[in-house]
């Protein structure tokens, strides 16, 4: 069969993300592929530079719809380090609880999406059903399901009431049981094993070469987790383990994520039970001194880095966001070559891509043309001409 180009994305049911793969396939085999990442450059970094530390947080939360707490925490953590303020331990614990709950809902979401990519919609429905429990807890604690708005420079915005703590603790045993069930399902559901095992394999060396992070790296045996190696928030106090796996394929990544679900439940339980009393915030200065910081954080998808430079005002001079998806992309592109066409969705989904968060540049491809501005009227005129060409009224 001659080579054909299969366009996947930006409008495709598999990836509801602004990315375009031009897959050149020979029958069912992928020969090579071209990636086009930046379809939605949102200019968040520039917008963040225009706002003071209070107003920038809702914006940074909206970098990502799933790891919203990650982005605000990593920023706040960096700013607090520059300001050299120590936030109260209760605030640290509350941030940790929210962060781990977020990791749980992100991983449950991922498990459902991965199952959906191989057509196993049942698991998708079930994980998303159980994810509601986590979301309910988050909603009770913070007031919103996705954009929690918990962080501010100097602490957290609202305290946890005792009834919220007990309600969250009540939900945990059921959640734990469900997670155990998912472990069983992943290990004995034949079609899932067929589609996950040996697919998208990355060796330890390849992972280190391409700089993959997070569950993708840990599935290949790279024992690296920012929460342990550079402890922040309350992770140093909490007993927990880094989950690694040696499979290196999609199955390994699933195992790592399910293992992390278990760990997250334990961390949340420990934090809820041992949460110290005290204030939840201190009055932080409005202005940060000159400084540069590289703030790291283990988001559900991997290591998230914010580079922050301040210049003695109440705004950042420069903020650069490196999302985990960007670090993982190269490994995806590498392990797709020579694979089956049917494996694209599951391999891409295995890194839990979040592309809108990743887009940092806009490529304007104008071969032989000039960039310019098109007004709406002109756009409409062009549409009419094109309609006429196609014989439409």
């Amino acid at each position, binding site marked *: 069969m001659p080579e054909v180009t299969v366009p996947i994305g930006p409008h495709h049911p598999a990836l509801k993300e602004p990315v375009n793969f031009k897959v050149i396939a020979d029958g069912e085999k992928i020969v090579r592929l071209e990636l086009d990442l930046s379809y939605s450059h949102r200019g968040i970094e520039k917008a963040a530079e225009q706002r003071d530390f209070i107003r920038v947080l809702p914006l940074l939360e909206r970098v990502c719809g799933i790891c919203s707490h990650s982005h605000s925490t990593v920023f706040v953590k960096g700013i607090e380090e520059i300001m050299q303020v120590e936030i109260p331990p209760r605030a640290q614990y509350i941030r940790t609880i929210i962060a781990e709950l977020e990791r749980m809902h992100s991983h449950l979401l991922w498990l459902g999406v991965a199952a959906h990519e191989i057509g196993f919609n049942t698991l998708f429905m079930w994980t998303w059903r159980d994810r509601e429990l986590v979301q309910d807890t988050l*909603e009770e604690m913070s007031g919103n399901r996705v954009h929690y708005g918990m962080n501010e420079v100097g602490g957290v915005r609202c305290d946890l009431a005792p009834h919220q703590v007990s309600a969250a603790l009540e939900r945990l045993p059921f959640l734990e049981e469900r997670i155990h069930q998912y472990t069983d399902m992943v290990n004995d559901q034949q079609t899932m094993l067929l589609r996950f095992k040996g697919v998208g394999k990355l060796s330890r060396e390849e992972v280190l070469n391409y700089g993959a992070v997070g569950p993708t790296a840990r599935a290949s045996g790279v024992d690296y987790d920012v929460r342990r190696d550079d402890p922040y928030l309350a992770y140093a106090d909490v007993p927990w383990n880094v989950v690694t796996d040696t499979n290196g394929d999609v199955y390994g990544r699933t195992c790592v994520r399910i293992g992390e679900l278990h760990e997250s439940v334990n961390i949340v339980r420990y934090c809820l039970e041992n949460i110290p009393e005290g204030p939840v915030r201190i009055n932080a200065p409005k202005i940060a001194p000159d400084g540069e910081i590289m703030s790291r954080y283990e988001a559900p998808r991997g290591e998230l880095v914010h580079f922050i430079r301040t210049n003695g005002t109440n705004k950042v001079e420069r903020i650069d966001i490196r999302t985990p998806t960007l670090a993982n992309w190269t490994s995806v592109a590498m392990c797709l070559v020579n694979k089956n066409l049917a494996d694209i969705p599951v391999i891409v989904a295995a890194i839990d891509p979040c592309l809108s968060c990743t887009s940092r540049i806009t490529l304007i491809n104008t071969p032989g043309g000039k960039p310019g501005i098109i007004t709406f009227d002109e756009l409409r005129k062009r549409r009419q001409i094109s309609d006429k060409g196609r014989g439409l009224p």
Partner: protein
Amino acid sequence: MSVLVEMFRNLLTMPSTILYPGERVPIPDKFRGRIAVSDEICIGCSKCSLVCSVQCISMVDSPREIRFKDKILLRKKKPAVKLFKCIRCGLCERHCPTGAIYLKNELSDSGTDKEVIAA
């Protein structure tokens, strides 16, 4: 096997989804819903409009004024919120010194009119 067990157990139990417009899920107390301003305790400090992350709060003249012998000495301001722009981040509520501006615990309908202003 665990898949089959779960499948047939679900067949015998009630579904966990709801038929939305008829049934509603309970909304927690802390829920950040539609914004509201209580005029009586607002002191017109305009802090909310300064911290609003999307700048949807503007200060407008309020009918409350301080008069002295038919002369308006001071006309108080009050916040007006463009609900369409509001992202319910809750910063105004957090920074309001008197608690006059707050987010109600109710799910406002989608498609709020662009011109609706809460006051």
